[in-house]
C-alpha cells in the first residue's frame, strides 16, 4: 500500500470518527436541550402571567379560557424554539453548531466565563502546557534509558527497566497523583496540593516561577508513571534494530560505538519509536486528564470533573468534542511524522507525485 493511499485512508478514518462523535454529541445534546427548553418554556409562560395582573384576573375567572391561552402560548414558544420540528432536523442543526464549536453557555460561570467556547479557549493552553512539559521529560528520559537498556540487554539495568515498566503500567496515574499530594503536599509540605497559581496570583516574573512551582507535582506524577513504559518500548524497538545487519556493518566500518547506537540504530528505529510515542501519548491522555483534575489544574481535566460534578452537559459536550478532535489531529501528525522520518515512505511518496 502506497503511503499516499495510506494517508488518505487515515484521513478518511479520522473524518469518520469525528463525524460519529459529532453525531453522538449532537444527539445527546439535542435530547438534553429539549428537556431544558421545555422547562424554560413553562417558566416563561408563568413569568408572563405574573407580569400581567390584568391578564391574570381575566384568566383565573375562566379555566377554559386559561387552558386555551396557555396552549396557544405554549405552541408559540415551541415553534420559536423549533421543538415542533422533527428530532433529526434539530440534530442536524445541532451538528452544525457542534462543528462550529457553538456549545452555548454553562449554568454557572467557570474561570469567570459562561460561554463554553471561551472556557475551552482558556483551558486548552493550560492543559497543553502541563501535558507537553511532562511528555518532553517522559520522551527524553524514556529514550535515553531505553537505549541504554537495549545496549546492555539482560543486565540489571535492563531488568530494572522491565520491572519498572510492569509496575508503573499497573498504577492508575490519577491515584499516583493523590499519593503525591498526600506525601509531598500534606506530609512534607514541599509543594502546593493543586491549582496553577497561588491565590491571589503573584505579579511579574514571580507569576511564572509560581506556575512552575505548581507544575512540579502534576508533571512529576505523569513523568513517573509513564517513563518506565516508554523506556521499555524504546528498548524493545532498539533491540530489534540492533540485531539488524547494518549495525554490524557500521561496526565493521569502524564507526565509533556512540555513533553506531545514536546515529545508525536510533536513527533507523526513529520512525517506529516516534509513532509508538505519539500513539502512547494519545493513550495516556485520558489518564493525564483525570490526573489534572486531581491536582485541580484549571485545564481540560478540571472541565471534565466540573462538568460531571455539576451536570454541565453543554460543557461536557464541548470538552469531549475538542478532546476527540485534538486526538485525531495528533494521530494524523503521527502518520505524517512517520512518513517524514522514513525515507522508504518519504521518497516513495515524492516519486509518485
Amino acid at each position, binding site marked *: 500500500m502506497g503511503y499516499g493511499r495510506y494517508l488518505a485512508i487515515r484521513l478518511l478514518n479520522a473524518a469518520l470518527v469525528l463525524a460519529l*462523535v459529532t453525531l*453522538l454529541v449532537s444527539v445527546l445534546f439535542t435530547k438534553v436541550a429539549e428537556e431544558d427548553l421545555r422547562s424554560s418554556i413553562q417558566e416563561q409562560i408563568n413569568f408572563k402571567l405574573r407580569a400581567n395582573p390584568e391578564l391574570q384576573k381575566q384568566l383565573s375567572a375562566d379555566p377554559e379560557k386559561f387552558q386555551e391561552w396557555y396552549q396557544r402560548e405554549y405552541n408559540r414558544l415551541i415553534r420559536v424554539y423549533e421543538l415542533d420540528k422533527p428530532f433529526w432536523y434539530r440534530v442536524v442543526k445541532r451538528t452544525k453548531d457542534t462543528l462550529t464549536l457553538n456549545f452555548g453557555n454553562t449554568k454557572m460561570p467557570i474561570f469567570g466565563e459562561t460561554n463554553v467556547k471561551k472556557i475551552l479557549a482558556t483551558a486548552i493552553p493550560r492543559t497543553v502546557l502541563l501535558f507537553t512539559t511532562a511528555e518532553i521529560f517522559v520522551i527524553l528520559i524514556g529514550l535515553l534509558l531505553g537505549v541504554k537498556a537495549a545496549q546492555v540487554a539482560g543486565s540489571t539495568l535492563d531488568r530494572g527497566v522491565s520491572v519498572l515498566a*510492569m509496575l508503573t503500567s499497573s498504577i492508575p496515574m490519577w*491515584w499516583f497523583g*493523590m499519593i503525591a499530594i498526600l506525601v509531598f503536599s*500534606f506530609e512534607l509540605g514541599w509543594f502546593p*496540593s493543586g491549582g496553577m497559581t497561588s491565590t491571589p496570583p503573584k505579579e511579574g516574573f514571580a507569576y511564572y516561577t509560581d506556575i512552575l512551582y505548581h507544575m512540579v507535582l502534576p508533571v512529576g506524577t505523569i513523568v513517573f508513571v509513564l517513563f518506565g513504559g516508554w523506556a521499555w518500548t524504546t528498548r524493545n524497538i532498539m533491540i530489534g534494530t540492533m540485531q539488524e545487519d547494518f549495525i554490524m556493518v557500521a561496526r565493521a566500518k569502524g564507526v565509533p560505538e556512540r555513533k553506531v547506537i545514536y546515529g545508525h540504530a536510533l536513527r533507523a528505529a526513529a520512525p517506529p519509536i516516534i509513532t509508538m510515542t505519539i500513539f502512547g501519548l494519545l493513550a495516556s491522555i485520558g489518564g493525564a486528564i483525570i490526573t489534572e483534575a486531581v491536582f485541580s489544574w484549571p485545564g481540560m481535566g478540571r472541565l471534565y470533573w466540573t462538568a460531571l460534578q455539576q451536570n454541565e452537559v453543554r460543557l461536557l459536550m464541548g470538552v469531549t468534542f475538542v478532546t476527540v478532535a485534538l*486526538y*485525531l489531529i495528533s494521530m494524523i501528525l503521527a502518520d505524517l511524522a512517520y512518513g517524514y522520518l522514513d525515507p522508504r515512505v518519504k521518497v516513495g511518496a515524492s516519486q509518485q507525485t
Partner: protein
Amino acid sequence: MRWVDFKASVKDFWFEFRRQKGGLLGLALLFLLVFTALAAPYITEPDIPDKWPTYWEGNPTNVPPIWYNYFTNKKLAAHEVLTYNDLRITPEQDLGGGIKYYAIEFDYINQYDLPPKDLIIKNIGVKLTDINSPAQITITLVRPDGQTVELLTTELREGSTFQVAKTGAVVNNVFNWAAEFEDPKALAGRTETIKSTMDVMRVIFAKAQPGILINPEPLHGKYTFLIEIFTFNEGDKIDLTPIVITLTGRTYGIMGTDYMGRDLWAGLVWGTRVSLTVGVSVAVLTVLIGISFGVTSAYLGGWRDEFMQRVNEFVASIPVLPILILLGAAFKGHVTLWTIVFLMVIFYWTGIAKVARSMALQIKEQTYVEAARALGAGTGRIIFKHILPQIMPYAFAAMALNVPGAVLTEASLSFLGLGDPTAVTWGQILYDAQTQSATINGYWWWVIPPGLAIALVALTFVLIGVALDRVLNPRLKRL
C-alpha cells in the same frame, strides 16, 4: 489435536512457565485475589453491598486503622461496641410507688492518649404507659482518681439515642466539673469559647489538674460508667437485652473508615469482586470477539477482508476514554457493571483482531492447511482444527494482558463518578476520597489501599501475561 498431544503440550508449557518467576508470582497473586473475592462474605459481612451506599451509624468517620497506633506516639482509642453480655446489669428493682430502678455498669480501661470520640447508648427497649411521664436516665462516670462526674440526667423515651459528647447538657456538666481544677485566669471571659470548642471526651478522661480544659492530659486507668434508669408508672417496661453501647473509636478496624463511617476494609475486600469480574469478563469477551473477527477476516480474504480491516481501523482510532465518559454521563445513575463491560468490549477488541488476522493468514498459507483443503476439509474444520489451536496460546496471553487495561478503565470511570452506583468498587472509594478532599486532609488510609489494590490486580495479570508471552513467543524468550 489429539488428547495425548494436548496433554503433552500442556506439560511442556508448564515446564517452561515454571521457570518464569514473575509468572509464578502472578499466579500466586491471582489465587489470592480469587480467594478474597469468593470469601468476601465470610471475611467481612454478607450484606456489605446493600449497606454500602448508606451512612454507617455508630461508626466513627474518617479515622485511621487500629494499627496506626504502632507508628504514632499518641495512642488513639480503638472502636468498641458493648452489648448486653458485656455489661453488669442490676435487674429491675421495685422502689415502691410505681417507681422501678435499673442499673447498667461497665468498666473502661483507658490506655490511650486520645480517648474515644463519643459514647453512644441506644436500643434500650422502652414501653411507656403514659407518654407524658417518660422514664429518666442518669449517666455517671467514676474515674480512676475517685472523682465522680455526673454526665447527664435526662428523659428516656422509646427509641432514645444518647450521643454523650454531642449533648449540650453534658458539655455544661463536664465544664462545670472541670472548671474547678482549671486555672481561673485561663478561663476568665472565655467560658463560651471553651465550651463550644472543647472535646468532652478528652476532658473526662484527663488528669484533674490545671489545663484540664485548655490542654487536657490523659489519665490512664479504670473508668466505670454507671447508667441508671428510673420508670415512674406501674406498666412501664424496660428491656435491656437489645442495648448497644458504642465507644466511638479514633481508630477503626483493619483499614479505618471514610466520611460515612464505612469500614474501608469491607469495601476493599468486596471491591476485589468487581475488579476481577470486570477485568476478566472484558478480557475474555474482547479476545473471543477479536479472534473471531480476525480469523474470519483472514479466512474470507478479498474485499471482505479489506472491509473488515477498515472497520477495525475505524474502531481502533476512536479515543476510548472521552467517549466512555460521555456515554457514562448520558446513562448516569442507571449504569450497571455490565453496561461498562459492554462499552469497553466494543472498543477494545481491535488490537487482538489485528494480530489474530495476521497469524491466521500465515497459518492459512502453510502447506499442511493447503493439503487439508485439497483433501476436502471444510472451512469449519480448517478453522477449528488448524487455525484456532495455534492461535489459542496467543489468545491466553492476550487475555491476561488485556485485564489491566480494563481494570484501570473501570477504576477511572468509577473515579469520575460514572460507575455502577450499586456496586462496591475501589474507583468509587477513591472518588469519595477525592470529593471529600481526603488527600489534603491526610486521610492516607482512605487513599492508599484502594489504589494499591487496583495496581495489584493489574500487576497480577501483567505478570501472568508477560510470562505467557515469553513462553509462547520465542523471540522474547531469548532476551
